[in-house]
C-alpha cells in the first residue's frame, strides 16, 4: 500500500504539467484491472497497483502523440517505452515515466485454468505471495508463482529501465532467459509444428487485438493486413492468410519486440503468439547480441549492418 500511496503522491505532483497520466484501476470484476487515464486528482485516487495490473500501458503512447503524457510502467513495460523512444516514435520531453519495481503479474489464463473459469469471481485479494479468490461460491488460495505470467518467470528487468520518477525499492532479483520454451517447441518436427499452428490459426478471428495491443505496432491504421496497396493479404478466412498475418507481425517486430506478451494476452481465442516473436528474439540475440528496448541510443539490428558479420556465415555453396 505504501508504494501505491507514494505513487499517487508523485503523480499528483506532476499532474498539473501533464495532459494525462496512464495507470490502472479496478475493472469490471475483482480479477480484472483496466487502464486508467488520470486527468484530475480524483482520478488519481482510483489508481491501483497489484499483480493484476497486467496491461502494458505503453501501447497507448503513440496514440497520444503531441500530448504531455505520464505513464506508469513496470520493468517489462519500460522496455517498450525505451524502444519507442529509440525508434523516435515518441518525443522524450513529452513523456513522463513513473517507474515501478515489479515482482510479477498474473496470467489470467492460468487463474482461469485453476478456477475452471473466470465468469463468477466474487472477490480476489493478494496476501504476500498468494492470491485468495472466491468464485462460484468456493474460495481458493493460489500461490503467485503458479499463476504468474510466463514472462515473469524469466524476467531480467524487474525495475523500470527508464523513469523520471521511480517509486519503491528496486527488486534485486533477475532471472536468466534460456528460451527453453522456444527450444522445446523447436524440438517438434516441422510437420508437428505446422499442424500446431494450423489448428491454432483456424480459430483466429482476424480481430487484430494482437496487433492493436502491441506497443510496437505503430502502423495500426495503415497495417498491410487490410490494405490493397500493398495487397499482401486477401480477406479470405483461410488458415494460410491468418497465419501469414502472424508472420508479418513477427517479422515486423524482429529486433523490436520487447516481449511484453500483450499480443498473446489480448488474443480472445488464446493463440500463443508470443512464441513466434520469442523465436525471432532468440535469434536476434544470438546473431547480434541485441535485446530490444534496453538502450535508447541503440539501433535496431535490422536497420543496421556490419560489413563483416561475426555470426552470419557467408553461405558459400
Amino acid at each position, binding site marked *: 500500500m505504501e508504494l501505491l500511496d507514494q505513487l499517487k503522491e508523485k503523480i499528483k505532483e506532476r499532474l498539473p504539467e501533464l495532459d494525462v497520466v496512464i495507470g490502472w484501476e479496478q475493472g469490471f470484476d475483482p480479477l480484472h484491472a483496466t487502464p486508467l487515464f488520470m486527468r484530475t486528482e480524483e482520478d488519481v485516487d482510483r489508481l491501483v497497483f497489484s499483480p493484476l495490473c497486467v496491461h502494458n500501458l505503453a501501447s497507448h503512447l503513440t496514440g497520444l502523440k503531441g500530448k504531455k503524457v505520464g505513464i506508469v510502467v513496470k520493468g517489462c513495460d519500460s522496455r517498450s517505452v525505451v524502444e519507442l523512444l529509440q*525508434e*523516435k516514435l515518441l518525443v522524450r520531453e513529452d513523456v513522463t515515466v513513473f517507474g515501478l519495481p515489479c515482482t510479477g503479474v498474473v496470467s489470467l489464463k492460468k487463474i482461469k485454468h485453476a478456477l475452471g473459469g473466470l465468469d463468477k469471481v466474487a472477490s480476489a485479494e493478494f496476501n504476500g505471495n498468494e492470491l485468495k479468490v472466491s468464485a462460484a461460491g468456493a474460495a481458493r488460495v493460489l500461490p503467485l508463482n503458479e499463476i504468474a505470467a510466463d514472462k515473469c518467470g524469466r524476467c531480467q528487468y524487474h525495475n523500470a529501465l527508464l523513469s523520471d520518477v521511480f517509486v519503491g525499492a528496486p527488486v534485486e532479483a533477475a532471472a536468466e532467459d534460456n528460451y527453453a520454451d522456444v527450444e522445446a517447441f523447436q524440438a517438434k518436427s516441422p510437420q508437428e509444428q505446422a499442424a500446431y499452428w494450423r489448428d491454432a490459426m483456424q480459430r483466429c478471428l482476424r480481430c487484430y487485438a494482437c496487433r492493436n495491443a502491441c506497443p510496437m505496432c*505503430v502502423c495500426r491504421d*495503415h497495417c*498491410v493486413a487490410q490494405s490493397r496497396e500493398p*495487397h499482401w493479404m486477401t480477406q*479470405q478466412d483461410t488458415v494460410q492468410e491468418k497465419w501469414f498475418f502472424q508472420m508479418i507481425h513477427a517479422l515486423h517486430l524482429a529486433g523490436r519486440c520487447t516481449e511484453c506478451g500483450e499480443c498473446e494476452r489480448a488474443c480472445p481465442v488464446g493463440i500463443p503468439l508470443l512464441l513466434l516473436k520469442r523465436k525471432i528474439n532468440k535469434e536476434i540475440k544470438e546473431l547480434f547480441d541485441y535485446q530490444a528496448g534496453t538502450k535508447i541510443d541503440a539501433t535496431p539490428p535490422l536497420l543496421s549492418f556490419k560489413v563483416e558479420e561475426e555470426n552470419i556465415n557467408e553461405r558459400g555453396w
Partner: protein
Amino acid sequence: MKIGVFICHCGSNIAGTVDVAKVAEEVGKLPDVAYSTDTMYACSEPGQEGIIQAIKDHNLDGVVVASCTPRMHEPTFRRTVERAGLNRYMFEMANIREHVSWIGKDKESNTQKAVDLASIAVAKLTQDRPLIAKKFGVNKRVMVIGGGVAGIQAALDCADGGLEVVLVEKTATIGGKMAKLDKTFPTVDCSSCILGPKMVDVAQHPNITLYANAEVDSVKGYVGNFEVAVKKKATYVDWTACTGCGLCTEKCPSKKATDYFNEKIATTTAISIAFPQAIPKKASIDPEYCIKITKDKCGVCEKLCPTKAIRYDMQDETVIEPVGAIIAATGYDLFDYTRYGEYGGGRYPDVITSLQYERILSASGPMAGHIKRPSDGKEPKNVVFVQCVGSRDKSVDRPYCSGFCCMYTAKQAIQTKDHLPDSQTYVFYMDIRAPGKMYDEFTRRAMEEYGARYIRGRVAMIYPKGDKYIVRGADTLAGTQVEVEADLVVLAVGAEAAKGASNLAEKLRISYDKYGFYMESHVKLRPVETNTAGVFLAGSCQGPKDIPSSVAQGSAAASKVLGLFSKDELESDPQVASVDIKRCVGCGKCIETCPFGAIEETDFRGEPKANVIETVCQGCGVCTSTCPQGAIQLQHFTDNQILAEVNALCQQPLVTSFE
C-alpha cells in the same frame, strides 16, 4: 488491360528448345492478354515494327516480350513501345533465352517454364503504371580525382572543351607515377620531357582549379549536382605566397625526412619541394620532421622566407566544390614486396623495386643518374631483374597480371646496358607479355642487342653471399636449377589498387573488385563509365595500365563528361521510391536504412513524413522492404508488382471456384 505478348524465336536460339508457338498460345489465354504471337527476331527492325503495329491495331496498353535477358534489350524495347505511343514502363520482359532455352534440354519443360516466365511478366505488367522522368539542371563543372597522367589528360581535355575543372591530388604535386619514371618504353624517351609540358598546362589553364595535397572527404548529391567536400591538408606554407624559390629547402636543418618522391632511397628536408618540375611548385613541411613543429625550436625557414609564407599553425581546411560529374583517376600503388620473405623481405639493401631503380636511373634523382648500389655506392656489374613480384601469384592473392612490368623490365635492362656497358643483366620471367605496338620488338632488342639474359622461371630465393647476392631459380626451359650471382637485384613489383581506393569508392558509391580496382559499367562496352551516373574512371584505378592506355582513358572519360554536359538538363530515372503520404507514419526507418541519404523527413500538416529526393534515389528499394506499412514503394518494383509475380507462380486457391 490489353496486353500484347511477343514470344521471340531468336532464330533457333530459343525456338530450338522451346515451343514458342505453344507459349504464345498458352499466354494468350490469360485474361489481360489481348494479343499474343511469336516472332522470329523481336529485336530486329521488322520485329520491332511488328510490335508497334500490334499496339496500334489492337489498342494495346502494355507489351511483354519474351526473348533474351532484359539486361540486353530492355532499353531497346522500351524505346519501341515508346515509339508506338506507350509509356516506356508499360513494358515487361521475360528472359526465355539465357534462363530457359540455353540451359534446359527438355523441350516440354522449357516450354512450360517459358509460359510461366511470360505469365509472370504479364502479371507484373497488369500492376505497372506509366512513369515519367523528371528533368533537372546540370552543374557543368567536373572534378578529376588524381593528378597522374590519366587525370591530367582528363582534366586538360575537359578544360579545353570549355568545362570548369577541379583537379584534386593527394600528394603535393601532380605527375603521379609517370613523373617518377626516367624513361618510357618502347621509345626510351624522357618521361618528364613528355609529361612536363602537360603538367605546366594544368597549372596555367584558366579553367582548371588545382588542389594539391588534398583529398576527397565526402561526396553528396547525384549526377549533375554533386557536392564534394575536399580536404586541403595543411602544408604549413601559404601557397598563395610561396614562390617556390627553394631557399627554405636549402637551409632546412632537418634532413632526414622521408623522400616519398624518390621512393625512400634517399631522404629529404623537412620543408621540401618534391622535385624541380613539381606542379604546383610550392614548398610544404613534413610536420613529423619539422623541428619547429615537433620541438618548437629552429624556425629557420620562417626567418628566411622572402615572402613570409611559412605558417606553422596551419590547419586542414575543407572546401565544398559543387560539380556535375566526377572522374576518378586515382592510379595504383606498388605491391609490397617485403611480403616475399624468400626475397629478403626488405632486409637486403641491394634488392630494390623497379620504381626505386627508375629514381636511380633518373638524372634528377638522388644518384643523379649514376647506377650505384644503395648499400655501398659501387657500380653493379651483374644486375638481376625478377619479374612477377606480386603479379600472377595466387600465394599472395595477386593472381592477375600487372601488364606493364615485362615492358619496363626490358627498358630497364636496356638502360642498364646504356649506363654500364660492362654490366650483364639477367631477367627471370614467367611469360613475356608484350602485345602493344612495337612492344615485342622492344623486348627482343633487350635480349638481342643489349644482351639481357632471359631465364624463364620463378626465383625461389635470394640470399646474400659476401657483398653479393645469390639469386636461385629454376630455368623451366632448360629444366635446370639456376643460380646467378648479382650485385643488384631489381624486383618488378606488380601494381595493386591505390591505398584508400575502396574508401573513396564507397564515398563515390561505385563498386570495386576484390583487389580494390574500380568496376567499370561494362567490361567491354562501357569501360570508363561506372554504375553510378556521373562518375567515370580513367587510368589504373580500374586496373593496371601503361601510359598510352591511361592517357586514352583520360581522354575517353573526358569525352563522356563532355557528352553528358552537352545537355542542359538531365532526365532522372523514374524508378525511384515514392511515399504514400496517407500511409506514412513518419517513423523514419527508411531514412535510417537508405544507403544514399535520399530520404528526408518533412512536415506535412504537423506530422513528420518521409520524402524522397528523387534525383538522389538510386532505386535499390531497401526502403520499401524496410517500411512495415508499405508506405514507401519503389516505383516499377512495388510490393504489388512483385506480389503479382509471386501469385502468378503460386497462389492459394480461392475459397470458392466459379463452377
